[in-house]
C-alpha cells in the first residue's frame, strides 16, 4: 500500500539544519496496524505528516497506492488525501463552533455526499463510537475521551483506506485511552490500515507491527507477537 524508499526530510532553522527523517525505507501493507515509537524529536510526527501528505519529502521515493507522491502536485496530493486518508490528532482538532454531528459530517460535505446519505452515515458512525447521545453538543461540552471518539468518527466516516493517528491517547486518561485503542483495533480488524504514533509502549500490543525510531532512522521494525485480546488489554490498561 505504501512504500518509502530512502526518503529524507530536514528542517532549516535560523542557524542549524535538523534532519527529521534520514534516508528511511519502509513498506506498509494493507490491513496492518503499525505503531511508531520513539523519543521526542526522533521524527515520528514528521513521518506521519509525510505519510498523510501534509508535508513534502526532500529526497527519496514515496509510493502510495501506486501513486508516486513526490511527483504529485499539491492538488493531486489533496485529492489522494481526501479519498484515502483519515486523521486522528492528539489534541482532537475538532472545530469549536460546530456540534458533534456537524464535525463528523464535515468530510462528507467536502466529498459532495448527498444530504440523505450524509445523515445515514453520521448516524451509523455515531453509534459505532457510542457518542450518539451527545450529537447536538459542542466539543467544549465533551470530555477528552468523548472528543477523541468524535475525532475518530470524523476520521472514519469516509471509510478511508488509511487512518493516521498522531498520539491519539496523549491527552486522555487510561480508561479513555483504552477505549480509544479498542476502537482503533476494531477498525483495523474490519480492514482499515492504521498508522499510529504513540508514546505509550503498552499500546503497541493493540497493533500488528511496531516501528521504533531514533534520530530519523528506523531502530526496530518487527511484528507484534502475542497480541493481547482486546478484553484482556482493557484490564491491563485499567489495572
Amino acid at each position: 500500500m505504501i512504500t518509502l524508499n530512502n526518503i529524507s526530510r530536514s528542517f532549516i532553522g535560523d542557524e542549524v539544519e535538523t534532519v527529521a527523517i534520514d534516508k528511511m525505507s519502509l513498506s506498509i501493507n494493507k490491513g496492518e496496524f503499525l505503531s511508531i515509537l520513539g523519543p521526542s524529536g526522533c521524527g515520528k510526527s514528521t513521518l506521519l505528516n509525510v505519510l498523510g501528505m501534509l508535508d513534502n519529502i526532500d529526497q527519496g521515493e514515496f509510493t502510495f497506492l501506486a501513486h508516486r507522491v513526490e511527483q504529485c502536485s499539491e492538488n493531486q496530493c489533496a485529492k489522494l488525501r481526501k479519498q484515502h486518508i483519515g486523521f486522528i490528532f492528539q489534541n482532537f482538532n475538532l472545530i469549536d463552533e460546530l456540534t458533534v454531528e456537524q464535525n463528523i459530517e464535515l468530510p462528507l460535505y467536502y466529498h459532495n455526499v448527498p444530504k440523505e446519505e450524509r445523515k445515514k452515515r453520521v448516524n451509523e458512525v455515531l453509534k459505532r463510537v457510542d457518542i450518539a447521545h451527545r450529537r447536538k453538543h459542542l466539543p467544549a461540552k465533551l470530555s477528552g475521551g468523548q472528543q477523541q471518539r468524535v475525532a475518530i468518527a470524523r476520521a472514519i466516516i469516509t471509510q478511508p483506506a488509511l487512518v493516521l493517528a498522531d498520539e491519539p491517547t496523549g491527552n486522555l486518561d487510561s480508561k479513555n485511552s483504552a477505549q480509544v485503542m479498542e476502537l482503533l483495533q476494531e477498525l483495523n480488524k474490519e480492514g482499515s490500515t492504521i498508522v499510529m504514533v504513540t508514546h505509550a509502549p503498552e499500546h503497541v500490543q493493540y497493533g500488528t507491527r511496531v516501528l521504533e525510531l531514533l534520530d530519523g532512522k528506523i531502530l526496530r521494525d518487527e511484528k507484534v507477537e502475542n497480541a493481547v485480546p482486546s478484553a484482556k488489554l482493557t484490564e491491563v490498561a485499567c489495572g
Partner: protein
Amino acid sequence: MVNLLLIVAWRNFWRDKTTSFIQLSGLVIGLACFILIQLYVDNQKSYNSQFTDAQNIYRINLIRDESKPQAQTPLKLSQELTSNFQQIDDATRVASNGISVKHSQNIYAERGLFVDKNYFSFFDFELLEGDIHTALNAPDSLVLHEDMAIKYFSRSTGVLGNRLTINGKEHQITAVIKKNNTPHTMPLTLILPIESYFSLLPSEAWQTRWNYNATVTFAKIANKSSIENLTRAVSDYYDERAKGSSSFKTNRVVIEPLLNIYLNNVTTYSLIPPGSAVMVTVFDIVALMILLLACVNFTNLSTAAAMRRGKDVGVRKALGASKHQLITQYLLEAILLTSAATVISLLVVELFLPSFNILMNTEINLAYSSSLGLQLISLTLFVAIAAGSYPAFYLSNLSPAHVLKGLVSTSKTGNLLRQGLIILQFGIAAFLLVSSLIVNWQMQFVKDMPQGFDRENVVVVNRGADIYNSFKTQLARHPDVISTTMSHTVPTKPTRTSNIVRPVNDISSEIWVGSNPVSYDFFQTFGIKLLSGRDFSKTYTNDIYVENENDWQASTGKLIINQSLATSLGWSPEEALDQMVTMGGAGGDGLHNHQIIAVVEDSHYINAKNAISPMIYLLSGQPRDLSLRWTSIRLKAGASLQTVKELEQVWLGLDGNLTFKYDWLSDLFSASYRNENQQTELLNIFTFLAIMVTSIGLFGLAAFNTQQRVKEIAIRKILGASTSQLCFMLVNQFSRLVLLANIIALPIAYWLMRDWLNGFIYRIDMPYSAFILSGIFSLIIAYITVMVIAYRAATAKPVDSLSCE
C-alpha cells in the same frame, strides 16, 4: 515612566506592522480628507469677511413675480435708498460690463467694474499704491488689480499716472489693489467710475428707469433689527414705482447680508459665479463620514488585536498595574499613532492642495499659525480619544485570569462590536456609492439631454451692433462660415427681457414670456429646428418688429414662438401657424396684435436646472433697434483656430477699438455646469476614498480573523476542503455583514436621493440599478479584499498551523 510608556508604544507599533500600518494609513486618509475639506469649507464660508464693515453691508436683490431673486437692480435705487430711508447709512452701486482696453497698439477684452466714488468705503481693499479716499474722484480714474498692473505694465508698483485707453477713452491709473488670497465676491479686474458706464447706455433716461436693472446695489445698515421692516418698506416703495413699467405684477426686494451672498446660488446676476451652501454642507458631512470610517478602522483593529494585547494586560495586572494606568497606556498609544497620522496627513494635504485648487478653482493655502496648530491638536486628541477609548477601556477591563488562558478571542461583545462597525463602514460606503452614482447619472442626463440647439462650431462674440451688417457681408465670403446672426441673448445666457402674450379672443388671459429679439439667420446659426412655418426672411418686409407708440394698433412684425408657448396657448405647432396673438399692456403700453409665422423647438437658455419658459422671437430690423448684443457665427465642422483669427481680422478691420471677445458656444455651455462638474468630481473622489478606507479596515480585520482561524482552516483542509471552499467560507462571513449594511443604508440613500432628484425639473427616474450596483460593488470590494487574505490562508500548509498547538 512616560519614557517607558513611549518605548512600549513604539515597540507595539512595530510588533504588528500590518495592523499598525493599516490603522495609520486609514487615519492618514481620514485626517487628510477632513483637513482638506475643512479648508475648502472654511474658504467657502469666509467670502467677503476681509472687509471691515462686512457685518453691516447688505446686497439688495429684486424678486419680481415668481421669478428667482436677481442681484441687478435699477441704477437709481442706490440714490433712492439713501435719500428716503433713514435706516440705510450709505449705498453704493457696481455695474459689470465687457470693455476694450487699448495699450501699446494692442487691444484686450476685459471685464470692467463701474463703481460709485464710495466703493472703497464698502470694500476696503489694501492698496499697493494710491489713496483709497481719492482713487475714484476723477471721471477718468482707473484702479487696477495687481494682476492687471502686471499684465499691462509688467510691474505692480510705480504705475500710478500711466494711462490705458478704455472703450476709446483715456483713463489714468490712480491706485493698484494688492492681491491677497482671502476670497471675496468682487471681480479682480479694472475699476472705473460709474460715469463711464452711463456713456454705454442708449440714453440718459435709462439711468432713472425703474425697469432697467443693471447695477448691483449694496447698502450699509448698522441697525440689524430694522432689516425686516426695512425690507417691507423698500419693497413697497420699489413696487409703487416699478409697477406698470413692466409686465411684472409684484416687485419685492430682499436685503441679503454680504457675508451670505457667495453661498446663495439662487440669486441670478451675481458679480461672480456663486458657490453652493448645499454642497458645502454635503462636504462637511462627507468629511465627517470619512473621519468616522478611519476612527472605526482604528477601534475595530485595536479590539481585534486585543487577543494579542490581552496577555500583556494579564501580565501587567498580575504585576500590580491599575486600570487607570492601563487606560493611560493604551490611550497614549492611540494619541501617538494619531499624532503621527496628523503629521503625515499634513504632508499629504500639502501634496494634494495644488491639484485640489485646480479642481475646485480655489486659492487655498495651508497657513501655519497658532490657531491652526490648536485646531490640529484638538482634532488629533478628538480622533485619538474617539477611536482609542473603547479599545483602552475594553483592554483594561479584561480579567487577567481569562486573558492569560487565551479566552479573549471568544468575547461575544467584542465580536458583535466589530461586526457592527463593519456594517457601519459598509453602510456609509454603500450610501456614498449610491449617492455618487445617482448624482453622476443625473448630471450626465442634464448635460446630454437635448438642449434645443446645436452647440458645436458656433463662435459667440460680445457686441458688434455698429459693424454687424458689414461684418456679416464680409463673412458670407469666408469659406468656413455657414451663417452669421445677431441677437439680444444667446442660448446659455438668460433672457433679459419679457413680454405678455394673450390670445386674441381672450385678452384677460396673460402668458408671461421671455423675449429674444434676433436678426436674420438666428435659427440656422444656433441649429434651432423649426417645427412648423418659416424663418424670418428679407422677402417679407412686415416680419420686422416695430412698436408704434403713437398708435399701438399700428405696430407691426411677425412672431416666431417656441413650442412651450404654443402648448400654453393650446395649439399644436401646425395649429399655431398664422394665428394672431395680442401683446403689450404692461407699463402703459397699448395692446397690439401680431401673427405667428413659425413654431420652433424649445431651447434651454440658462441650463437644464431651470424650466423652459414660453418664448417669443422678434425680428430686429437693425441691430440697434431692439438692442441686439451678441454676434454669433456658425462655422463648418473642423474649422480651425486660424479661421477664428481671420474673423478677428475682419472684425478689427471694421473697428480697431472694439475687441473681438469671443467664446465657443460649447465652452459657454460647459461653463454653465462648471460648479456641478467640480462638485460631482469632488464627490466621486471622496466616495472613492471612503471605499478605500473601508477596504483597508476590512482587510485588516479579515487578516486578523483569518489568523484566528488558521487551525480551523488547517483541519478543514485535511478533511478535504478545497481552496475555493475555504476561500468562500472565509469571505462569506463578511458578505452577510456587507449585505446587511446595504439593506440598512440603501433605504436612507433612496429617501435622500429622491428629495435631491425632486429638486430638478429635468431628471432621471430613480435608478434602481444604482442600488443593485452598489450592493454588488460593495460585495465585490469585500470579496476582493478578503480573498487576498483568504487565498493565502487557504493555500498555506496545514501542518504548520497544527504543529503550533
